[in-house]
């Protein structure tokens, strides 16, 4: 699920009008995902993203969190245009580096219309780029490249496991309404290797990463104000994805989780089997928003506690897309014992999401 805030908020009510201009394909149950075709872009759908999160260590065992995201949007305008500039496909990228030594995120963002080879999301395999920030699948290894003002990285992310199909074989529902869904798969346990440049130095780094790829034509269900999402790479090779969608009172309106154990057995959990219980809060000195940065998450009989790598992983994207949220590297524990690393996304804790 997740990260649709970016479209719903950035382009606001636009979509209500866009409906009239273009007919987007529906997301339907039972459509089998095919790889590598479905790793590439699906330009007919309204929205799509490739979301890489991960944990890195340098030679001196310093730990970092990183995030690199590409969004594709079909706003439904200029569909008939003959111009090479026609804004039929828009691309956005977000990147963040969590360095506990800094205590705050270093971020980068960019936006462009697809075209002229400067920004694109190609079909057939994962191959997206905006102005030199790129994520390309080269025979099972993703090359993630970014050069921001404050930091840069070049990472090779190698698949160690097959795709984890979320929801019902990749059909991931977001609400009780059957059409309110996305196609969604994850690639957990990516082995990360590469170079990280920041603070004037260049470090060889390695670690583990997670790639989410999701596409849909639907918006967030009405009444929802935000969501909590996590993806955890367990040290033993297992993976857990869990999310819930909250209403204004903070109640879960929908939830879902998928767990694949180290032997590859996958279990999907229904909304009532998934719970998120906040363990501690952190208040942003900048926005005054309280974020539940530590959670006890339960999916069926799996219970995991999440603690943030550092408290301040608030991402202020008000200038670019009009939202502030918390998205950060977390450590996973079971009964106090460290069992893995992951990412946690918390949205809608400040102002309610405007849809």
């Amino acid at each position, binding site marked *: 699920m997740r990260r649709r805030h970016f479209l719903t908020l950035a382009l606001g009510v636009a979509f209500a009008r866009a409906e009239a201009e273009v007919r987007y394909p529906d997301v339907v149950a039972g459509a089998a995902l095919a790889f590598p075709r479905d790793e590439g872009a699906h330009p007919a759908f309204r929205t799509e993203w490739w979301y890489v999160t991960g944990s890195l260590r340098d030679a001196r065992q310093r730990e970092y969190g990183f995030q690199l995201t590409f969004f594709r949007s079909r706003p439904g305008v200029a569909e008939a245009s003959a*111009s*090479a*500039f026609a804004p039929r496909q828009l691309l956005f990228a977000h990147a963040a580096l969590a360095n506990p030594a800094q205590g705050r995120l270093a971020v980068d963002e960019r936006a462009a219309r697809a075209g002229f080879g400067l920004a694109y999301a190609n079909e057939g395999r994962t191959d997206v780029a905006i102005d030199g920030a790129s994520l390309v699948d080269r025979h099972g290894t993703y090359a993630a490249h970014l050069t921001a003002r404050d930091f840069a990285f070049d990472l090779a992310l190698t698949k160690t496991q097959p795709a984890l199909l979320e929801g019902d074989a990749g059909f991931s529902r977001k609400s009780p309404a059957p059409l309110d869904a996305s196609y969604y798969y994850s690639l957990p346990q990516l082995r990360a290797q590469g170079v990280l440049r920041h603070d004037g130095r260049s470090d060889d780094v390695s670690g583990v990463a997670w790639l989410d790829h999701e596409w849909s034509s639907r918006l967030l269900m009405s009444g929802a104000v935000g969501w909590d999402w996590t993806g955890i790479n367990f040290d033993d090779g297992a993976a857990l994805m869990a999310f819930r969608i909250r209403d204004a009172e903070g109640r879960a309106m929908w939830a879902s989780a998928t767990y694949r154990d180290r032997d590859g057995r996958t279990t999907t959990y229904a909304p009532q089997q998934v719970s998120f219980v906040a363990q501690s809060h952190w208040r942003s000195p900048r926005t005054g928003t309280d974020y539940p940065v530590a959670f006890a998450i339960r999916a069926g009989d799996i219970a995991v506690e999440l603690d943030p790598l550092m408290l301040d992983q608030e991402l202020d994207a008000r200038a670019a897309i009009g939202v502030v949220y918390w998205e950060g590297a977390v450590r996973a524990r079971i009964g106090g014992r460290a069992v893995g690393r992951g990412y946690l996304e918390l949205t809608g804790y400040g102002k309610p999401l405007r849809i």
Partner: protein
Amino acid sequence: MSVAAQYALSRAISGRARDVLKGRTLLAVMAIAFGVALGYAVHVINQSAVRELASGVALLSGAADLEVRGPREGFDEHLYPVLARDRDVQDASPVVEVDAKLAGARATLQVIGVDVFRARSITPALVGRGDDALDTLRPDAIFLTRAAARGLGVEPGQSLHLQAGLQVATLRVAGYVGDDGDRQYAVMDIAAVQDRFARDGRVTRVDLRLAPGVDRAAVARRLQASLPAGVHVAPPATTADAVTRFSRAYRVNLDVLALVALFTGAMLVYATQTLAVARRRTQFALLRTLGLSSRRLVAGVLGEAIVLGIVGAIVGLVAGYALALLALQRFGPDLGAGYFEPGAVRPSVDAWSILAFALLGVLAAVVGSLLPALDASHAAPAAALKAADADVVVPARSRPLAWIGLGAGAAMAFLPAVNELPIFGYLAIALILLGGILALPTLARALLHALPVPRHVPAALALSHLRATPGRFASMLAAVVASVALMSAMAIMVDSFRDSLDAWLRVMLPADIYVRTAGDTAFLSVADQQAISALPGVAHAEFMRATTISLDPARPPVVLLARDIDAHDASARLALVGASMVPRVDAPPPAWISEAVADAAHLRPGDTLTLPIAGRDVAFTVAGIWRDYARQQGSIVIERKRYAASSGDATVNEAALWLAQDARAGAVRNALLAYAGTGRLQVTTPGELRRLSLATFDRTFAVTYALEAAAVVIGLAGLSAALVAQTLARRREFGMLRHVGMPRRAIGRMLAIEGALLAATGVIVGFVLGFAISLILIHVVNRQSFHWGMDLHVPWPSLAALGAVLIVLAAATARLASNHATGQDAVRAVRDDW
């Protein structure tokens, strides 16, 4: 200096100070004020215009370090990704800019197509704001500046109709763009502008922001080397500089005109001070004998002048600011000359220019008083004590100075422009004027001695009086000569220009009907051209494609006119000047360049000229030079078939139609409008175009006319004041004449004749100087400033009428003054003062 002398001097000066608000002195103050007011007003207007232009460019080019610009049609959009990927380029923002014609109206609107994702970091003033962020991408959405919305009378949510080809594009006003300033423009998505206004595959500009720390000039040089012909890379300020430079000659011209007003003011101060000093000769002589040093005396007179100057300058600055405010509101920053985009401009005020113009005013007053002051100090006290109204002594060294001035002035007229400004031309005018004035006593004596002494007693007396006092006579005439010279020079120049323009319009408008599409977005397709040629009543049609190309980024783009023209008979369509030729068959095809292009590029018929057309350099042979009053930035005419072959663009913006023998213009006009739809074409006749052009001309020169009138009024006022003053000063003489039996009426006649003779001398000398100056204005100042030639045409009737009016007014003034002066008892008059 003795205490008595000091007291007497302070009395003499303060007595004058009390005089300040009276009569002649008031006139002198007014003259200074007038000069300062005009000078300051012109300066404020010019500064405001330049500042407005610079801020406009700054707003629209935002944080761009470099701009890549091409011809008006733009250049291949695939240059954009090449630039965007360049190693030194951080951000690149493509722009398509068109002047879109408003459907059903003559006006155009500057429409800027941007990629909002690229523009927001470089040019935030080009990012639209509305309720719906997606409107910045929607093809039907347009954002207007508040000023443009006000000007067009639309609000967000309403529709705006723009013309594309002969079709109408209906757009939705989605919100506002830019600041609350006065600039009028609109912003749309770049793809929408390409689609709707036939700019497929082309951009007109790419704004570049460079990576931090790179050498902008070096990057510009490196990028330039890889750009296609006609596409230039330069800092955004270059564009502003080009326009500023383009209008600079015009602005300097106005500045000089204003200084002329100040100069005339100084002449008037000279006239009044000379007489004032002459009147107080005895007083000053007394002071000298009491021990006042001549230096103190000069200082005292100059002190008076400074007071005059300060009062005049203060009044002038206030009036000048008010004048500038009024002119900016009424006519815009270029006073209607068409150099700048229309729109209200706030006056620009700074302390330095206020100080400078105040100093100029004081300086004019001091300079005007310098000669009289020196004269007073040089007079031998004993002689001066006796003869109260002896002649003004003109320093002997002024005579060689006069000839040197005239000679140097004539020589300077042949020097070339300095930095594209006719500096030597202006200097030549100033020197001829000064030389002429310094030569006045000599000229006056020569003129007066050439006249036979008449039998008529009053006339004989008048002549002999004038002959006896050529110095005073000259000082009274200085103001009138200066003003007549400037006025007649200006009148001859303007009339020559107007006459040449009229003749030019006749050559340039041979057809019966002219059809135009305005802006960049309206055009006639090949089908439209065929349909128009086939309209009933149209015997012959010629079409023209007008566009602009950039030959040099530091200059405004040159207009390229691709028209149906017979290379063997170009003079049938163009106002050719000088020799022309037909290129040999194997030579590049012909191009006819305007005088401005010929001057700028130093081209002559037979030379080869390379023009960037559609990104490629195409060679042409200069076949002739023509006069183009319509496009000061320069224009080049080429054959339309060559243009279409090189560019693939067969659309046109203008058509000239010749009617069949029995066809009526009205019927053809109606057929045209019926074909295109009302308001989509401008259909005019040559007569209408001529009227319009001449009306524009007159509006542009309205300022000149106003200055001329002011100069004449100042000159006349100066002469009248001098006549009245000296008549009053000669009361003793009149008393004596009455004593020996001369009737009052005869004295009046004598004075009237004196006045008329004076004025006639001034008018004749003024006309001669004016004619010389007009030649410099026409052949040096105008040619070097605006690069257009004109044929001399002297408006004899109006000049003669003006001269006659001046002479009659001078005679009448003298006559009136005499009534006053001779009104009192003759005996008392003889005793007066002694």
